[in-house]
C-alpha cells in the first residue's frame, strides 16, 4: 500500500466552451498522504470541486498526471477506491435510509447478510441506528446528509471525497456534523478530501489545507495544520487556530483578484 493516496503532478483541465477555453485546473501539484484530512478552500471557479471530480474519475484531465492509490482514477473507480458525498444528500426518495445505503452494496453484488452488517455498522457510525426504516423525507436535512455519508462509508473505501457536504446546512447543525465527522475520521482512519467555502470549517477539520485561486484554477498555498488530532469545538478560539485561519484568509485574499 503506497503512503500517498492521491498524487497529482502538473495536472491541468481545460473546458472548451463557446466563450473560449476555461482553465479549471492549471499545473496542480499535490500529494495527499494516507490518513490525511485535506481541505480544499477557495472562491468559486478555483477548481476545487473539479479537482475532486478528477480524483473520482467524473472528469478527465487534459494534461499532467494523477494517480489514486497508485492507479489511474478510472482503475481506482472500478475498484471502488473511494466514497463520494455531494452537497445535496441525493438520497433516492423511494428507498428507505437503509435501502439507500444498500444501493452501492447491491451494485457490488454483496450478499444480503453482508449488506445487512455493513448497513448496521455505518448507520451507528453516523448515529442513525434507529432511522434505517425511515424514508428520506422523514429526516431533517442534517440527518439526510449523515445518511449520505453513511452510504459513502458503506463500501469501506479508504478514501472519502466530500464536496461541500455541509454547505446547505445551518451553522449549528454544521458545527455538530463537523465534530461528528472528525470523530468518524479518527475512528475509521480514512483519508478525507473535503471541499469547502468556510475558513473555520477548513481549519477545524483539516490536517492539511489547500488554498486555491481562480482563473486559472491553481494551488496557491498548502498549510499543514499544527492543531492536535483531538479537537473540541472550542479549539476554534485558541490563538493557534486563529493564526492558521489568518493565514488561510491571507492566501484567499492574495489569490483572488477582485477587479472582475
Amino acid at each position: 500500500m503506497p503512503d500517498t493516496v492521491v498524487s497529482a503532478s502538473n495536472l491541468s483541465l481545460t473546458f472548451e466552451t463557446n466563450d473560449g477555453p476555461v482553465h479549471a485546473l492549471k499545473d496542480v501539484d499535490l500529494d495527499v498522504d494516507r490518513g490525511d484530512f485535506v481541505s480544499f478552500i477557495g472562491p468559486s471557479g478555483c477548481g476545487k470541486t473539479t479537482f475532486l471530480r478528477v480524483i473520482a474519475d467524473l472528469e478527465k484531465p487534459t494534461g499532467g498526471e494523477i494517480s489514486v492509490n497508485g492507479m489511474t482514477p478510472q482503475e481506482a473507480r472500478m475498484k471502488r477506491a473511494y466514497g463520494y458525498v455531494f452537497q445535496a444528500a441525493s438520497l433516492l426518495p423511494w428507498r428507505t435510509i437503509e435501502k439507500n445505503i444498500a444501493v452501492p452494496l447491491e451494485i457490488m453484488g454483496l450478499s444480503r447478510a453482508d449488506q445487512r452488517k455493513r448497513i448496521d455498522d455505518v448507520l451507528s457510525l453516523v448515529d442513525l441506528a434507529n432511522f434505517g426504516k425511515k424514508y428520506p423525507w422523514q429526516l431533517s436535512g442534517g440527518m439526510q446528509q449523515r445518511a449520505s455519508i453513511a452510504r459513502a462509508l458503506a463500501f469501506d473505501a479508504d478514501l472519502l471525497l466530500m464536496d461541500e457536504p455541509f454547505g446547505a446546512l445551518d451553522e449549528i447543525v454544521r458545527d455538530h456534523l463537523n465534530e461528528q465527522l472528525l470523530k468518524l475520521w479518527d475512528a475509521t482512519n480514512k483519508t478525507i478530501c473535503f471541499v469547502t467555502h468556510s475558513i473555520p470549517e477548513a481549519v477545524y477539520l483539516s490536517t492539511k489545507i489547500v488554498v486555491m485561486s481562480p482563473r486559472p484554477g491553481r494551488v496557491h498555498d498548502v498549510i499543514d495544520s499544527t492543531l492536535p488530532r483531538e479537537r473540541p469545538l472550542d479549539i476554534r478560539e485558541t490563538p493557534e487556530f486563529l493564526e492558521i485561519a489568518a493565514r488561510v484568509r491571507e492566501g484567499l485574499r492574495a489569490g483572488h483578484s477582485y477587479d472582475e
Partner: protein
Amino acid sequence: MAPGQISFMTNHGKAIPVLTIITILIAIWYACVVWMNAPFERDKAERISKPAPTLSQLIPATMAQERPVLPAPHQVVIEIWKTTGAMVQKGRPFSKRSLIYHSWVTLSATLLGFLIGTALGIMLAVGIVHNRAMDKSVMPWVITSQTIPILAIAPMIIVVLNAVGISGLLPKALISTYLSFFPVVVGMVKGLRSPDAAQLDLMHTYSASRAQTFWKLRWPASMPYLFTSLKIAIAISLVGAIVGELPTGAVAGLGARMLAGSYYGQTIQIWSALITASALAAVLVMIVGFAHTLVLKRMGEEPA
C-alpha cells in the same frame, strides 16, 4: 385518514361545486331540447292543420319524441337502462342489443391497444434515452405520427390488415396503440431523464452498469411520469377503439352503435352509446389513477 390507508377519493368538499355544475348543465341541456325539438312539433301540427301548440303542450312533446334532434337526458338514461340493467334482469347481459356487450367489444380492443401502446412507448423511450442515434432520429417521427389525423389513417390500417388476413380485435387495438404510445413515449423520456446529475454521478462512482443504473435509478424515478402518461393513454385508447369501429362498418362495439344510430336517425341510441363511452373512459382513468396512488404509496411517497 389512518396511515397506510389509500385515499381513493381525496376530493372532500368538492361534491357541492361538482353537483352544482352538473345541475346547471342538465338545465341547459333541457332548455336546448325544447329549443331544438320545437320546430318539429310545430311542423307536425301545421301538416295536419292543427293550431300551433301552446307552450305547455310543446314542452312535454319535445321531450318525448322518438327521433329527437336532441334527446332529453331522461330519454338517454331510460335507453341506457333498457340496454344494460334491464338486459341483466332478463338474464341476457351479452345479447347483441345490450350496451354491456357493445362496451365489452370496445373495451377489449381498448385494453389490448393500451397494453401494446404502453409497451411500445416504454421501449421507444428506453431506446431514446440510451441510444444517441435513436435520440436524434426517433422523436421527430413520433411527433409526426400524431399530426396525421387518426380518422384518415384508421380505415387504411383496417383495410390493409384485412387484406393480409388480420381482422377482428387486433386492427382496432392497433389504432388504440397508434394513439396511446405517444403520451407514454413523451412521459417516459422525461421520466427516465429525471434523475439529477448528482444521482447519475453517484451511480458512476459506484461503477454501476447501464442496466444497474436503469433498474435502480432511472426506472423508479420515472414512475410518476409513467402513470401520468398512462391516464392520458387509456382515455385515448378508448377513443382509438371507437374510431376504429366507425369506418369499417363494424357490427359490434360502441362506435358501431353510434354509426348504426346515425344511419337510422336513432339519436337516443347515439347519445346513450356516447354517454356510456365517456363513463367507461372515466372508470378506466380512475382505475389507472388508483394504481398510481397505490404504486407511489408503496414507493414511500411523502403524503401530500
